[in-house]
Structure formats: structure tokens, C-alpha cells
């Protein structure tokens, strides 16, 4: 079972994208906390692409493929913009961030806490961020 969603690379498009994600995830999942976690992780990855991606002038929509394989969810984010290093390790405790007023890396921390694996790779002219989560 795979769903393909398209996201125009603008922050203003995120609410509609979340709605479409929730609609699909709710077909398979029932736990509202888990659904919210997955929406959050996928949105954070897309936001990073929108905010930090080296987007060419002739940008294309970000394609998001979500599939359920046995007890695992796989989310592929396909973009023609080079992604932010989403699998980079993040330092600093939350307390340090508060003292330093450092908001950076929160999204990546959330992604890595929510998902079981995160990898980025190139395929042809595109970059893929693949995130997987074992569903309990």
C-alpha cells in the first residue's frame, strides 16, 4: 500500500500537506500520537528541504511516497534540491539550547527520535531522504 503526495516547496503549503498525510495515515493507523509523530517527522524533513535546500530556479514539487511494508512504514522524500544533512548527528542538550537560544537542529532531533532509520542518497538527478519506522 503506497501513497504519493506532492508538496509545492513553500512553507504556506504545509497545512494542506499535513491534512493529506493525516487522511492517508488514518486509514492504517489508529493511535493519534503515533499518527502525529509520523506527520511531524515527514513535515520536518520537507521543511528542511524547503528552507535549506539548494533549490534550482526551475524547481519541482517535492514528492513524498509513503508505504506500509508488513509492520514498517517507509517514507521517501524525493526532491531535485540537495537536502540538508538530515542524518547528521545533533549535539547539545535541550537545556544548552535554551541557554544559547539555539533553535537549530530541533527538527532533525525530532526526526531522529521518531524514526528508526534515516538515510539520504542520490538517484539520478534527484535526492531521496528515506525514513523508516517500525510500527508497534
Amino acid at each position, binding site marked *: 500500500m503506497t501513497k504519493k503526495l506532492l508538496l509545492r516547496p513553500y*512553507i*504556506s503549503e*504545509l*497545512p494542506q500537506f*499535513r491534512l493529506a498525510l493525516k487522511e492517508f495515515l488514518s486509514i492504517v493507523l489508529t493511535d*493519534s*500520537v503515533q*499518527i*502525529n*509523530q509520523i*506527520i*511531524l517527522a515527514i*513535515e*520536518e524533513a520537507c*521543511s528542511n528541504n524547503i*528552507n535549506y535546500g539548494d533549490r534550482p530556479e526551475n524547481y519541482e514539487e517535492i514528492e513524498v511516497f509513503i508505504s506500509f511494508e508488513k509492520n514498517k512504514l517507509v517514507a521517501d522524500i524525493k526532491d531535485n534540491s540537495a537536502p540538508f544533512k538530515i542524518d547528521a548527528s545533533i549535539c547539545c*542538550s*535541550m*537545556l544548552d*539550547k*535554551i*541557554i544559547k*537560544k*539555539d*533553535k537549530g537542529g*530541533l*527538527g532533525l*532531533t*525530532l526526526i531522529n*527520535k*521518531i524514526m528508526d532509520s534515516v538515510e539520504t542518497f542520490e538517484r539520478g538527478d534527484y535526492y531521496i531522504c528515506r525514513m523508516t519506522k517500525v510500527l508497534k
Partner: protein
Amino acid sequence: MEIKEKYLNDIVILILSGELDAGTSIFLDEKIEKFIESGYIKFVFGFEQLDYISSAGLGVFISHLDDVNNKDGFFRFFGLQDKIKNVFSLLGFDLLVSIYTSENQALEG
């Protein structure tokens, strides 16, 4: 996202509804900034109607919390839905702020 504001003595109560994400967090950030500039340092945030928070939303609180704490003020939160509480907890933010069930409890501290 909608932000309603109320006051009780020197405490600002901000009731948030809707979604606090990269697009909407700037409005909350500006509002808190203006309150702090005006001398307010005690904030109670109502989250009962807040359906979503992303890292950008949490970043707003993170960027102001130290200033408020250093002036003997506070950020208190009440009425968090389980999914929002879970996001706080994923980042360990729940250990650094006070979370209450109701507005009255949050005001009493």
C-alpha cells in the same frame, strides 16, 4: 492559528488554537517579544485547542525561555493534548517547563 490574550495582574495568558508551525510561529514569536519588551515576564499558555506543534513552534518558547527565567518570570503551559505532550517529551522540553492540567492550576503554580 489564533491567539487570544487575557491578563491576570502581571500574568499574560495566551490561549492558542489551531496549528503552530513554521508558517504561524512568527506571529507568536512577535507577540511574546512585544510583551517582554513591555516588561511582562510571566506567561501562561493555554494549549487545549492547539492541534499541532512543530519544531518551529517549540523554537519560539526555547528562544525566550532563558530571558524570562533570568528575570524571575515563567512559562507555564496547560491543557496539552497527548500528541502535543508527546512532542514536548521527545525533546525533553517537558522537564524544563511547568505543565498543568487546567488554567487555574497554571495560574496558582
